[in-house]
């Protein structure tokens, strides 16, 4: 039998009780305003956060970036850290599901109390948290996404800075090359149906490239494609396309080449956006299909791509040399094979260290944002163009050079001497960039501040 008293209580008393409970709980739960000290920074440590797909269909390749970054930070720490503070990188796996990214971001911010977010990977996933991160004033540095929407309006996202050239910039520069060199050819494109693929198409169109055949690589990135790219390649072949542009990830490029190979389709020229042109991934996937490295290297040879940094295959580049050495010594990830992703991770580690050194001992969130925005020129890296940060844009590298893979899977400049081109993410012209990259120090640590 139930308690009669509780049964006979009037509804009003319930509501008032509820109100009291509610108010009481609210009062209890009000959290005091943020303390004076900067989160994630202590006398001995700087905690940085990063989220990326470490597992799941979208993870391949990208899941090496964090290990490379951590390897570089470990190297810095082994040299005494930044002003005595060791850098700790907390990495969260969001499996490329935006619903989860919100939670991992919250964990980094609230649980791990990171000072800044560094090098996060992914466009869709980052969209889901970028507003919150910016609202909280948390530095959102060196984001691994070429989506121009993040960077071109600093008023909207004042704390977010990129780590790649935007897809549009790269596509415009490649587009100029296509216009100049393949004017008489029939051009077709296979692209991913997301921001990356579409921005690429948009950039190429801005540069005046017209496509005879435009084919989507479907939701290739979701790892759910059923039959490689047979259908797309067949259609390009049917349209007599002899210059194929690939605006998709490396596994899609590998699939496209296999599919083309299968139907005896030999386009005169493959042109691949840098994200998809990673030689190691290309060779690994084909290798597992039983294609010998020599054969896959031959398949890759002649492919045109662009890059903002030296090719990982340029063994005598001083940055490549230094990074490679650190990678060999410090990378504890499951797959530390030297490639574009590792190079990118190392470079973000280097840039982050530069920025932390540049701000000085007194490390605050607004401080580092202001410093990075104002001192892009003081932050050189392996990249062959300077950072493009300013109060007007937070795009990272606006310079790309165009190369062609040789028989040893090294991207070699198409011009006799390497020419770097630059442009903006809007309608601006493509011009040549004159930039001399400062040398790397003997200890491979940035010398700033």
């Amino acid at each position, binding site marked *: 039998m139930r308690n009669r008293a509780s*049964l006979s209580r009037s509804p009003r008393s319930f509501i008032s009780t509820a109100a009291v409970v509610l108010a009481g709980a*609210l009062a209890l*739960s009000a959290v005091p305003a943020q303390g004076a000290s900067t989160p994630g920074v202590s006398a001995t440590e700087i905690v940085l956060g990063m989220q990326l797909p470490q597992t799941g269909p979208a993870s391949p390749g990208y899941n090496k970036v964090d290990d490379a970054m951590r390897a570089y930070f470990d190297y810095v720490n082994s040299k005494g850290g930044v002003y005595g503070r060791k850098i700790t990188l907390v990495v969260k796996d969001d499996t490329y599901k*935006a619903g989860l990214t919100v939670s991992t971001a919250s964990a980094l911010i*609230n649980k791990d109390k990171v000072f800044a977010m560094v090098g996060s990977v992914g466009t869709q996933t980052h*969209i889901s948290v970028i507003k919150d991160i910016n609202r909280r004033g948390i530095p959102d540095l060196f984001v691994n996404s070429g989506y121009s929407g993040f960077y071109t309006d600093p008023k909207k996202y004042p704390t977010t800075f990129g780590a790649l050239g935007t897809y549009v910039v790269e596509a415009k520069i490649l587009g100029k090359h296509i216009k100049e060199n393949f004017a008489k050819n029939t051009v077709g494109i296979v692209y991913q149906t997301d*921001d990356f693929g579409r921005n690429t198409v948009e950039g190429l169109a801005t540069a005046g490239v017209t496509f005879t055949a435009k084919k989507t690589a479907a939701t290739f990135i979701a790892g759910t494609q059923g039959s490689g790219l047979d259908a797309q390649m067949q259609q390009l072949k049917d349209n007599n396309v002899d210059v194929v542009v690939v605006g998709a990830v490396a596994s899609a490029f590998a699939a496209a080449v296999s599919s083309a190979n299968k139907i005896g389709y030999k386009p005169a020229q493959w042109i691949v956006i840098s994200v998809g042109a990673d030689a190691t991934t290309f060779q690994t996937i084909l290798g597992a299909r039983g294609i010998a490295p020599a054969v896959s290297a031959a398949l890759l040879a002649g492919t045109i791509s662009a890059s903002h940094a030296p090719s990982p295959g340029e063994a005598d580049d001083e940055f490549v040399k230094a990074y490679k050495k650190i990678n060999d010594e410090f990378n504890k990830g*499951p797959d530390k094979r030297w490639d574009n992703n590792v190079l990118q991770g190392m470079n973000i580690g280097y840039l982050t260290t530069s920025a932390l050194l540049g701000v000085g001992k007194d490390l605050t969130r607004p401080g580092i944002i202001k410093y990075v925005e104002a001192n892009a020129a003081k932050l050189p890296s392996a990249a062959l163009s300077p950072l493009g940060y300013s109060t007007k844009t937070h795009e990272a590298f606006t310079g790309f050079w165009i190369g062609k893979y040789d028989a040893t899977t090294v991207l070699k400049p198409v011009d006799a001497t390497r020419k770097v081109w630059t442009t903006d993410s809007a309608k601006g012209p493509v011009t040549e960039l004159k930039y001399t990259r400062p040398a790397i120090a003997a200890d491979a640590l940035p010398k700033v501040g």
Partner: protein
Amino acid sequence: MRAVSKAKNHSIARKSLRRTIFFVAAILFAASTFDAYNQAQLAVVLILFIGVLSVTLLTGISGQLSLGQGALMAVGGYCMALLMINQNYSLWVAIPLAIVGSALAGLLLGIAAARLTGPYLAGTTLVIALAIPTLANRFMSVLKGDEGLPVDVGYPPVWFTNLFGEPSYEQWQLYVALPFAAIALFLASNILLSRTGRMWRAIRDNETAAALSGVNFSRQKIFVFVVSATFAGLSGALYGLRGLVGPSVYPVSLSLLLLTAAVLGGIRSIFGAFIGTVIVVFLPDWIDAVLHQFELSEQVSNFMPALVSSLLLILTVVINPAGVAGTHLHKHKHK
């Protein structure tokens, strides 16, 4: 001939209200002891709880197994986001309208599903869960493809801050989700305590006998889909309000997560739905806390939550299919 009725005069609404108030009080108390991260997680629990309730109603109460509730959540999310972005509606207006949208989707799905049973229904809804998100790319100009539609809960209104002080962003997420979760709980409890719930359970147990009791079960089964879709749609709208409405927010795995939560907690009980949600949301953190003591590679620790929750699901089904809440709770005893 007439036996004297000994039933107590008690109102169903009042009983549900009592549950709801207890629930709200418990949440607020828990929130007050939580740090910001766990407050945000608690908000996720509240949001997904509504989605799990949709599974409880559909599968536990009326016996129709759907693996596509995530698709209905997506419908709710997209409706809301489109209204907020294109029409500038506030979320308090957009959400109820979004619920109507998802109810319509539920009606279509229910009409298709009414002919299906068991594995046919499960498989078809799974295909739906997979196919619906691809519409985002099909209707690029409106639905914005993979990038999706960014929305969020915004800031609390002035009267709120005047009354209760400035909440943190996490708290505000929680306070937005709480009334909806409370309403969902209240309504679900009402349904279960009255004729409608009894009718649905009767259909689940024996369609023929239900029909002989005057229940048009094929119509009711469609109707359950509609009701379940409103819950899923609400949950999906709130889930989208965490930052983004897009295909990667409502993947197939979300549908399976809802089902896992419902089964772990107890597929026939509201309490079970809540417990199950708490388990699936906090499990990764608990596992993290345990694994932290061991030096495990990223590879292992990343997959551990999925492994543990899958094993829990199998064990629950094999050992105690009634879940944590057990079966006794759905015997609505009236004393």
